């Protein structure tokens, strides 16, 4: 599921995704696993410095984006 999360955020081309949309997108891309795994993978990727979030100023939603380290994982550094 971690790789699919990275792909989904990489595809959004710098537009941050809120958690609900990110989870739906990950599932659309055919990744199995429940919400608990999704949240655990988000935490793991964040701790590894591959993704980050900020809270939306109006809604307070967590908005996730990919960090350069995460992008490198997808592109293989190219």
């Amino acid at each position, binding site marked *: 599921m971690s790789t699919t999360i990275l*792909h*989904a955020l990489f*595809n*959004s*081309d710098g*537009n*941050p*995704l*809120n958690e*609900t*949309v990110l989870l*739906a*997108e990950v*599932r*659309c*891309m*055919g990744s199995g696993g429940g919400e608990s795994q999704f949240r655990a993978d988000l935490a793991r990727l964040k701790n590894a410095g591959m993704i980050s979030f900020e809270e*939306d*100023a*109006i*809604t307070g939603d967590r*908005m996730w984006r990919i960090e350069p380290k995460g992008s490198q994982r*997808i592109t293989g550094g190219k």
Partner: protein
Amino acid sequence: MDSRSDSLAAKLQRAGLFDEYFAWWLQERPSIPDRKEWLEKAEMPHSNDAISNLHKSPEAAMWRNAAAAKARAAMEAGLPKNIDSLIRKSLLDQRFNHVMGELSHKELMDQFILEGDSERLKIKREELAVKKQALKLSREKFETETCKKFLLWFKDAKAREIADSGLSNADKIAALRAEYFKDVDALEASGGVQLPD
């Protein structure tokens, strides 16, 4: 990351039909047979699995992102210039996520329905396989019983004598019946058993 060059996604892109297909899908939400028909008309016949993979493909994800980015750009063009930057960013992010969420929700609903159909089809196939197996077992049992009866008959000198006689077929059958069911006939004659009419 792109799909393989022989994937349906890659073929649709090469033919310049990718956006047209997904725009049609979004508007019509067609069934799998309708999608197959659409693809056949475009001279790209594909299996159900290939169509399912198309909708899970990186290209489909990119299409959703492009649609959301377009909606975001349209909103950005209409926003007042003097709006607070944090509010502007929030509104634009919401717009992007709203469209992405709507598209991925529709895609997920579709996948859910199609997988349900596929599961029902699998159950029907399994039921048919069980019925077929039961028929095969029944036929084998019948054949075994027939062979056993033949062996019994072959050992029976009286039966062979009837079979080799110059009687007509109908008389041979009547004589064999009388030979094999003489105990039943005797019981019936004694009143010990009532045979159905």
